[in-house]
């Protein structure tokens, strides 16, 4: 019999024994698409994003004032369980029995030590899907090594290829975390599809490191076949010229311009009112422009400096040149295209006040996402989850 779900994960129950970003953001995507997601933490050990990770609303510290927690946990329910206590473990197992999916991002081996390992989970819920995400994977010599996204982004090779050749590499922040989040949603969805087909649950072992490696494959092949390490080169591109960011009018305002062929170069020169550059022998072909790249950058920069980044962006895009604004966070919240897509959903949080949740990067035509509740306060739904959800779940099974 066919179901009639109006959202992709309608009816799917998720218990999240996870903190900070790499686990909870997976649950957030699922909650945005209809899953019932319970985020588990404890007063003894609140989510690290609540505890010691700015921003806090108005820079005033508080467990329910953390923006990083808010952005990863909208539309979820929050319960507190002390996993160090026997009653806590029993309660956790009740929640696992209720759930379809468990998401956890402890150091490998921890859930087993706590008494809620995969075997215990299967005992109370044979169809459970356990999704484990960690730094290095559940197996292997470095399995137990802890780490945050910012460190792992360096191990994955991203740091080395970001920056200028004559300067220290630049850090991308916890970049890998959200690569692992994307692959995490894919993995959980695959496991749900497998369960839909076969009735069988499973254990997923996602190493954030390995998902990061997927974004590095061309560099691995370059080294593997040509024995060449990809170096950081600022904004330079092997054959696109100009290919850079240029200063515009205003305080630290920049635009990005990338020109891949003669047609685009011609359009750019026309937009700049500099038709004479089209036939200038220094700029006539791709190799010529590449050879005189500093001159190209100077000419383009002289033009952009007289305009706002928005003016450059509009003018060039209307004429077929690939250009953009180096948007700041402030720009993103005012971006008309993102507004059109409903990317930022306004929410009212009891302590933070008006804030916004981030929508998915895709729109599903028949099962749209729905964001209608702010991130929960710590332990906000203890009664609802333990009394109502679990009781209803038991009745369903009987």
């Amino acid at each position, binding site marked *: 019999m066919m179901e009639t*779900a109006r959202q992709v994960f309608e009816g799917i129950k998720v218990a999240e024994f996870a903190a900070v*970003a790499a686990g909870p953001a997976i649950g957030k995507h699922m909650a945005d698409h209809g899953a019932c997601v319970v985020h588990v933490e404890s007063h003894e050990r609140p989510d690290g994003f609540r505890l010691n990770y*700015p*921003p806090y609303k108005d820079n005033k510290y508080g467990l329910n004032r953390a923006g990083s927690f808010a952005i990863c946990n909208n539309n979820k329910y929050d319960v507190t369980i002390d996993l160090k206590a026997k009653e806590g473990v029993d309660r956790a197992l009740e929640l696992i029995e209720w759930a379809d999916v468990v998401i956890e991002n402890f150091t490998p081996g921890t859930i087993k030590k706590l008494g809620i390992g995969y075997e215990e989970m299967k005992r109370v819920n044979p169809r459970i899907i356990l999704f484990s995400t960690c730094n*290095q*994977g559940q197996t292997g*010599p*470095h399995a*137990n*090594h802890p*780490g*945050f996204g910012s*460190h792992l982004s*360096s*191990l994955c*090779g*991203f740091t080395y290829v970001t920056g*200028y050749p004559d*300067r*220290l*590499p*630049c*850090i991308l922040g916890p970049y890998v*975390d*959200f690569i692992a989040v*994307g692959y995490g*949603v894919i993995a959980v969805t*695959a496991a*749900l*599809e497998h369960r*839909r087909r076969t009735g069988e649950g499973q*254990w997923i072992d996602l*190493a954030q490191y*390995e998902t990061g490696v*997927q974004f590095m494959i*061309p560099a691995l*092949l*370059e080294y*593997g076949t*040509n024995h060449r390490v990809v170096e950081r080169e*600022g*904004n330079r591109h*092997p054959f696109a010229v100009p290919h850079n*960011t240029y200063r515009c009018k205003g305080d630290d305002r920049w635009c*990005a311009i990338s020109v891949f062929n003669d047609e685009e170069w011609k359009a750019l020169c026309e937009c700049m009112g500099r038709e004479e550059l089209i036939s200038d022998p220094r700029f006539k072909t791709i190799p010529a422009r590449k050879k005189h790249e500093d001159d190209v950058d100077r000419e383009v920069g002289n033009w952009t400096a007289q305009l706002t980044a928005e003016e450059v962006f509009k003018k060039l895009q209307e004429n077929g040149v690939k250009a*953009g604004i*180096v948007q*700041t*966070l402030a720009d993103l919240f005012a971006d008309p*295209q*993102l507004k*059109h*897509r409903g990317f930022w959903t306004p929410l009212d949080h009891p302590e933070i006040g008006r804030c*916004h949740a*981030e929508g998915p*990067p*895709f*729109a*599903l*035509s028949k099962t749209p996402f729905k964001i209608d509740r702010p991130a929960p306060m710590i332990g906000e739904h203890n009664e609802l989850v333990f009394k109502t959800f679990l009781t209803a779940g038991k009745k369903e099974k009987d």
Partner: protein
Amino acid sequence: MEEKVKLLKDCRVLDFTNETAFLCGKILGDLGADVVKVEKPGGDESRNLGSFFQDIPHPEKNLYWFSYNHNKRGITLNIETETGREILRKLVENTDIVLETFAPGYLEKSGLGYAALSEINPKLVMTSVTPFGQSGPYKDYKGSDLVLTAMSGLMSSLGDRDKPPIRTTLPQSYMWIGMHAAMGTLMAYYHRGRTGEGQHVDVSGQAGVIWALNHSPSFYDLNKEVPRREGSYITGRSITGAIFRAVYPCQDGYVTFVIYGGPAGKRTNRRLVEWMDSKGMAPDDLKNKDWDKFDIAAVAQEEVDRIEDACMKFFTTVTKKEFFEHVLENDMLGYPVATAKEILEDEQLKARGLWREVEHEGLGTKITYPAFSTVFSSIACDFWRRAPLIGEHNREVYGEIGLNDSDILRLKRANVI
């Protein structure tokens, strides 16, 4: 142990993407889908992008093509011709998922948009990937890796303060876009399994890359703070506005070490001082520091600078390898700034069986690829086949819709395939 299953083995995907979304079909292929990459007769233009095997510019030697089109079969088809469009419609009858990156409106004009194709196959999932999405004020604007890195906000935090903002040299936005396209596609496919309903997935490249900003939008959202590019420093870890060095030069390259709080950070800081001390390089104020009282979220820049000065001196005395071994043995946070070479040599990845040597018979060599993104207990996620040559599976795929060798020859001569 039971054998793992190819989850999507009965799922047929037609992949009309360009370089901006190759990864989408690859991810479905990793999970066992029968992904058929469709190129123009003569091959995709994207085969000319990026670098080449042994630096020989040739469409069959393109490393970017190899990187993200494996686990796909390959056919050629010219949908600019009416016969080509008829063939596409025929293929769609037995297709579960169509992936495409044409400019918004292009397929509709050719009578091949979602509305038309879903009439042929009502259960079809169709995923359209464009720089800004199918509708809205920027829908017709063009993208590139540089432009999308800029428009997503990622670039505003990358680069040195005294220099222009930068992108990552190895293009990253197309990975974010392809991954998120796969996520939306698989979700729609799962929904179809539950309900029988197909749908259209509209992926915005810009929005796809915004997810690379992790939690940082909340800085503006809550406090109207606009983080700026700070080079090798991490921002936003302290409410005092202090920034933290995350890249240090070492003897043979760079290491990433960051002063952190929390249990792991405090342990790391303490053990670093012990390590410094063992070499007589720990300043007294660090030796006497009570790390339990150290509050990362409230620490001032002055104190951070003092600690980092000592770290700076110390790390120049160690190699990447020594650093890596030490953090592993002592359960400290930190990693070397690795290059492709070190990733390929990494003990953990080797032990996990990540690497697969794949025969490229046309090149007379084997190339090493990562075999999987995720380890499942019941689903096989693997490297199944190298990227296709131009039109390599024309006979196979067109044979499946009843075209014989002479049909294929005729279509080839007519520039349809």
